């Protein structure tokens, strides 16, 4: 199989790039793919913690680039999945420790070993961002349904296109369907209207993510989590499977479910009209 290098980026910080990288990487590995997740956020590394691997780091990305160690020595095998590896970022250096040529070479090396190489980009549009996208075949943009995030995503899409990469795909993260329905939050259509790119997934806001992140357990392992399922679906779409985009539909409240049971809920009425 052709190996694919995919960069996850956003422009704005705190929208869920690292969580997305960890979860899509884990989900792809769960599907039997050989996956490397690379933390390119040098100086502010977090991907190791979200995967629960921070205490295993010996060598890092900068050590590999500078020739202090071999690539294999720096790759950390995941504690749950045999096909998932992490290449951690250096914490004591900064973004300028690596240049674009080195980063591209690193991507080439990783290609030889893995089906998927996922690169977690730092926030911003400077050297770190440019390093993160230089070797990528595909770009995934993570955005939250809010103005600042969408605007930064728009900027990033422009930069990605200017760099000659194919049009990025979007993961809309932390959507609160109930708020969007009330008009208190941007909904999927609002975001797509501005960005005009293809949607790879919609991840609902989910408190379980906070717990999972703190424990160092990716949420895709948690079968009850809707966010976890959304990430799993996004990974399946990356692999080319057709999965309907049904993440938006909110779990109905108890009252709503009762109403439907009795037979005059709004959802049921709608169905009758359609049929």
């Amino acid at each position, binding site marked *: 199989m052709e190996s694919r290098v995919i960069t996850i980026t956003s422009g704005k910080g705190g929208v869920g790039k690292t969580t997305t990288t960890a979860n899509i990487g884990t989900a792809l590995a769960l599907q039997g793919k050989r996956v490397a997740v690379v933390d390119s956020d040098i100086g502010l590394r977090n991907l190791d913690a979200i995967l629960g691997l921070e205490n295993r780091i010996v060598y890092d990305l900068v050590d590999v680039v500078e020739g202090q160690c071999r690539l294999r020595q720096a790759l950390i095998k995941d504690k749950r999945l045999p096909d998932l590896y992490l290449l951690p970022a250096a914490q004591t250096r900064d973004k*300028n420790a690596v*240049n*674009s040529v080195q980063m591209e070479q690193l991507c080439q090396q990783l290609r030889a070993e893995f089906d998927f190489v996922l690169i977690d980009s730092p926030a911003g*549009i400077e050297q770190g961002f440019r390093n993160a996208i230089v*070797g990528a075949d595909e770009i995934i943009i993570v955005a939250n349904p809010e103005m600042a995030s969408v605007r*930064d995503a728009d*900027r990033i899409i422009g930069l990605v*296109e200017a760099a000659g990469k194919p049009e990025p795909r979007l993961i809309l993260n932390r959507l609160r369907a109930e708020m969007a329905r009330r008009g208190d939050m941007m909904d999927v259509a609002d975001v797509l209207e*501005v960005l005009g790119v293809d949607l790879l997934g919609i991840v609902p806001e989910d408190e379980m993510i906070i717990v999972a992140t703190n424990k160092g357990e990716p949420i895709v392992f948690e079968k009850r989590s809707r966010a976890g399922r959304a990430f799993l679906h996004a990974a399946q779409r990356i692999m080319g499977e057709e999965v309907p985009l049904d993440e938006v539909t909110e779990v109905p409240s108890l009252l709503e479910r009762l109403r439907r049971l009795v037979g005059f809920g709004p959802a049921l009425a709608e169905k009758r009209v359609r049929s």
Partner: protein
Amino acid sequence: MGTEDTSDKVTSEEGSSLGREEKQSVQGNIAIKGTRNGLLLTLEPETPFSELLNALSDRLAEAPGFFRGASLALDTSRRMLRVSERIQLEDLLAHYHMSVTPLEQIAPMQRNGEPQAVPTNDTASPITATSSETSQVQHDLRETGDTLLIRRTIRSGQAIHHPSNIVILGDVNPGAEVVAGGDIIIWGVLRGMVHAGYPDDESACVCSLQLAPVQLRIAHMLSRPPEGAGVQPNPEVARIRNGRIVVETWVNGRPHRK
């Protein structure tokens, strides 16, 4: 992808990479030279334009980091460009966030009685130049109908500057900036900042299928949409009437008067 990376590396190697550009120029039919005023692009007079464009595209792709954001002067002393050719060139340069600068100081103006070939002045310049000479040039361009057509969405952080009219087939997103010496017509949604009639043409107008700008400027005037006002889902046109910018619905092919 690129051969140049960190900015300090680029500066330190500037001399050598420019030397390399000159060596390659014979083969590629184009030359990019470093001059006192920045980069100077010379095009071979006999080669078909499409070949020149391909050669330039390859050259830029070799070192995108090096050329990014640079402004390029076009030497037209040996070769004139048609309007359509120049627009293609601009489109290519815009991909690398590059702009074309006027070069009166490098090549003398040579366009007496040449209405369709506009050799020199170009984007980005009028924003810094405010002399009467500039506005004279802009006026000429409006008359010659030298309109810039762009077939894509202008995204945040991207800026389009043009001394004449601009037509955009796509949206103008928040954080984007479009500045025209003449009219601005947007076949899409306007959500960013536009400035028509720069610097002082009060007859200029802005039209779009949906007018929802962050800020709209015409000539020396500035307006913001009223706080809390909803956006009309109709084509609208903004122009100066009686000393203020007014927005009117576009009905039956002309601005609707209330």
